[in-house]
């Protein structure tokens, strides 16, 4: 039951679901949720490969870095969302069509 393929399938489902969240949702915060899912799918892949293929802990390190990057991404992303909300008073993604103002 516990095999590389099972983890990869879970990771794949997570990834595709995250993708669909990013495409289907119109709320920027929801899109950030999707990004988290996608990043976690990747991290899960790394750890799974680390366990089943490479047999060292580099995958774990990579997963940790993905968590770090996700944190940084969320911080900057949310800051941008705040600015966007201050300007447009909405966080509907379709309002974000202009590069300035």
């Amino acid at each position, binding site marked *: 039951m*516990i095999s*590389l*393929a*099972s*983890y*990869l399938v*879970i990771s*794949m*489902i*997570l*990834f*595709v*679901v*995250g*993708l*669909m*969240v990013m*495409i*289907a*949702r*119109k*709320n920027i*915060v*929801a899109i950030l*949720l*999707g990004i*988290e*899912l996608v990043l*976690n799918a990747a*991290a*899960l892949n790394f*750890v799974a490969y*680390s*366990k*089943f*293929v490479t*047999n060292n*802990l*580099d995958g*774990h*390190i990579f*997963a*940790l*870095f993905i*968590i770090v990057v*996700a*944190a*940084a*991404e*969320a*911080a*900057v992303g*949310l*800051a*941008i*969302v*705040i600015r966007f*909300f201050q300007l447009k008073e909405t*966080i*509907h993604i379709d309002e974000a069509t202009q590069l300035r103002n």
Partner: protein
Amino acid sequence: MFLNTLFVMSALLTVVCAVLVLTTKNIMHSCVFLLGSLIGIAGLYATLGADFVAVTQVMVYVGGVVILMLFAVMLTGGKDFISKAQNLMGLAPTMGNTWTYAVAGLVGLVFLLTNIQLLSRLGTMSKLKNDGAFESTVNKIGHLLVKDHVLSFEISSVLLLGALVGAAIIARPRKQ
């Protein structure tokens, strides 16, 4: 047996919660389901023997998701999404409509097929190399972080600092 049970539970939690993130209409519910999904992933890490990563996952994402929820509430207002019944065609800010879901489903399908196409070749690879007893990864990860991966470790610290400062600058209200 124990590990298998844990794996099944975690996998189910992960996948079901992820799908619920996609389908639920309330952004707050989405956040909660995301939390569930991420904790499920932590469980999957645990089944992979990655104890440190698993706990880090919980540690970071529980706080992170709370922040996301906070923002979701602050920026969209909670009340609208409780009192108004959502129909799938409605253009409420949190949701897409049928059209977007259709596109998303299509794209997801395409990508799913692509992934399956890729994964179908992995049959030869999926051999469990490390089937030994569970051993702590904390010390090893610590050593790796300050020896082999010290550069990326430092860079990630700079990245975090940059993100922190950048976020503070971006989010600062500007006087017009």
